[in-house]
Every structure is written in C-alpha cells, then in structure tokens.
C-alpha cells in the first residue's frame, strides 16, 4: 500500500478562481425536459463555469495564487517549490509550472514541476508537496491545482458537457513543527485507462458506467484503510471532502462509509465537476469561515482518470481562505 506520512507541514491557505461565464444544464437543447430533470437530479449539477478560450489553466491558477500570497503577506522569495497539477496545461512544452514560477515572481531558487493527474490530482499533489517539505530543507511551497477541462470536450458529448466545469486553485504550505502529521493513501489501476481518456488531436471521452463502477468499488476500501492507518474514526472527522464527481456516485460512497450528510459538503449544484480542483475548491467555497477561525480534522478523497485514487487525513487550523475569485 502506498501510504505516505507527512509530519510538520501546515496548510497556510487555500484559494480558488473560476471563470465568470455560467452555463446551465436547464439550457441543454439536445435533451427533453424529462431527461434534463433526471440528469440534474442524478448528477446534482445545475450550472457550470466555462472558461472562454482567452482564459487558460495558468490564468485561473495565477489569479488564485496571487491573491493568496498577498493575503498571506508571504515574501515570494521564500517559496522554494511550486507544483502545478493539471491535465490541461497552457502549452505542451515547457510545463506550465515554469510559466507560473515566472509570472508569480517566484525566485530562481524555486523548483517547479507539472504533475499530470485528474480527479485524484489534489490528493496526489498535496501528498507529493507535503512529502517533499517534510523530508527536505524546503520550508515554503505552493501547490496549484486546476484545469480548463471544458476546452478539451466535444461540444455535443452529453456524457461530459453537463458534468465538467473550469477552475484553478492555490494551496500554500509551510514547515511547522506544531502541526500534526498528515497521512495519505494513493492507488493506481492503469488497466482502466480508457475509462476517461483523450487521444492526441481528439476531445476527451468518458465511459460514465466504467467510472461509476470504479468509484463504487474502490473508494470505500481506500478511505477505510486511510482512516485505520491514521487511527482516526468517522466520528473524529469534522468534514469529509470528496472529489465532486456526481451526486449519485458521491452519495452512494458517503452512505457506504456511513458518514453523516452534514459532514460532507457539496459544490456540485453551482459549479459542477471541476476535475482536479474540486477538493480545494469545495474547501474554500463551503468551509471558508470555519477553516479560517477554527481547527478541523478533514478527510479528503479523490478518484477518477488513470484510474487513480487516493485519500488523506489533514489537520487544518487558521487557514487563510480568500473569497472566491471570478475572472472575466
């Protein structure tokens, strides 16, 4: 099992940015009224945010990061690591993390790298960043997680268009001896790589049934193993923040894990499935005030393209969370 322990790493802040343009599932002309109602009821998604072609992944992540760094009042010269998790970089070469290092005014002493991950991407990115900081001399890092996934969808594809949405997020991390250990449990099954895929020159395709089957089968044992390894019970969790896939799948997982509904926030209705960004986005949008003013033990769980999935236990306190940024 790929368990990772990361002691003494604090999440100092989380921020998120979305495009201002809203698209509604009530306006899907290819579906009958009855089918639209069933779609909205099943996915839980009413509206989505769509980035125009002029807004890229790095634009959304930059907006989130710039605001967060200003609110934290961090000296940008102290940031030693930047990781960008995305499947929709601005350009193939070089990685967009390099563009963002420059654009954000980070020093040349900062290492930067891209991580190609989808719906499990926040858990993978956070585990990687926290692991780096916990086991090195790095003191401050910036994890940027976002996608303009709507840019790679076929406009008539009803298996993807009503689901996906665009967002960029930033998470600031720092070494802090007073912080309790975080724990992660990461898994992969490349045999399921066709469930969600994009071939060169084509749009992204998704086999909804395969993804649903995978989610029902794999997420619950992964989460239970993480809780057991961390020695944390469901009762001890303040919140469980899941990748926002669709309401039917997420609620099935929640019920199987016997997590009370009030501990599981959703942002699906207004913002849809923002790919790798859903977890930090939901933390900011739904729990902003509580994360800023109190200490919380949170489970996070991401699952999807790869197939990749993973979960983690985080201890969050006095976390700076700026208000959601909307970009035109």
């Amino acid at each position, binding site marked *: 099992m790929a368990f990772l322990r990361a002691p003494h790493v604090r999440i100092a802040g989380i921020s998120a940015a979305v495009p201002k343009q809203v698209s509604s599932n009530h306006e899907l002309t290819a579906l009958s009224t009855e089918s639209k109602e069933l779609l909205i009821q099943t996915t839980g998604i009413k509206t989505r945010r769509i980035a125009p072609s002029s807004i890229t992944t790095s634009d959304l992540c930059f907006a989130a990061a710039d605001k967060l760094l200003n609110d934290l009042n961090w000296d940008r010269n102290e940031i030693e690591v930047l990781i960008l998790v995305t499947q929709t970089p601005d350009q193939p070469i070089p990685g967009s993390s390099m563009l963002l290092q420059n654009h954000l005014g980070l020093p040349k002493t900062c290492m930067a790298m891209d991580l190609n991950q989808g719906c499990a991407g926040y858990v993978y990115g956070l585990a990687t960043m926290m692991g780096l900081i916990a086991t090195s001399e790095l003191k401050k890092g910036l994890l940027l997680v976002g996608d303009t996934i709507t840019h790679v969808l076929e406009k008539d594809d009803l298996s993807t268009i009503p689901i996906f949405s665009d967002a960029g997020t930033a998470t600031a991390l720092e070494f802090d001896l007073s912080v309790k250990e975080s724990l992660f449990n990461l898994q992969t099954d490349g045999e399921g790589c066709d469930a969600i895929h994009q071939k060169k020159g084509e749009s992204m395709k998704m086999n*909804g049934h395969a993804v649903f*089957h995978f989610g*029902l089968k794999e997420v619950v044992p992964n989460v239970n193993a993480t809780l057991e390894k961390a020695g944390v019970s469901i009762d001890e969790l303040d919140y469980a923040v899941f990748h926002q896939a669709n309401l039917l799948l997420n609620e*099935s997982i929640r019920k199987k894990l016997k997590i009370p509904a009030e501990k599981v926030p959703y942002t699906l209705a207004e913002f849809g499935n923002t790919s790798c960004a859903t977890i930090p986005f939901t933390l900011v949008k739904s729990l902003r005030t509580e994360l800023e003013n109190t200490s919380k033990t949170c489970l996070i769980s991401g699952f999807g393209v790869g197939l990749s999935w993973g979960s983690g236990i985080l201890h969050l306190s006095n976390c700076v969370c700026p208000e959601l940024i909307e970009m035109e």
Partner: protein
Amino acid sequence: MLVQMDQSFSFFQSLIQAQFEGTFANSFDKVSEWTSMQSLIVVSTIDEHYDVLVSHETMKKMQDLESLHAHILQQRSN
C-alpha cells in the same frame, strides 16, 4: 443485531420503483428513454441495498427486473 434482508422480488421491485416514482417498467425494453442515468440509479440502488456491484456489461444482458433480481441473489449466494 443483524437485520434479515428481504430477498423477495416484490421488495426488489418496490425499491427500484421508488427511485422512479413508480414509473419504472419491469421489462427493460418498455422503459421509456432507458438512459445511462436510469441504469446508474439502478446500479447504485442495488449496491446500497444488496451490496452487489453490477457491471455495465451485466446490465446490458438483463431483459427485465426478474432476471436482474435473480442475478443479484446468485451473486449474494457466491
């Protein structure tokens, strides 16, 4: 205390009907707009109540609720 699961067809039928406000037909070819969403709702309901995960391939082979119910009972007895 273990609660005995009602394994009857009538219970299964009522469970599925409840998801669709009683509009779900027993024979799948009579279900209006038998869509992916409806199929996923049925899969989710079966998983929640019977702890049996039915694949899309298996769902496609099923003719009606009776055959699906028989498949569930067979999986539970394995």
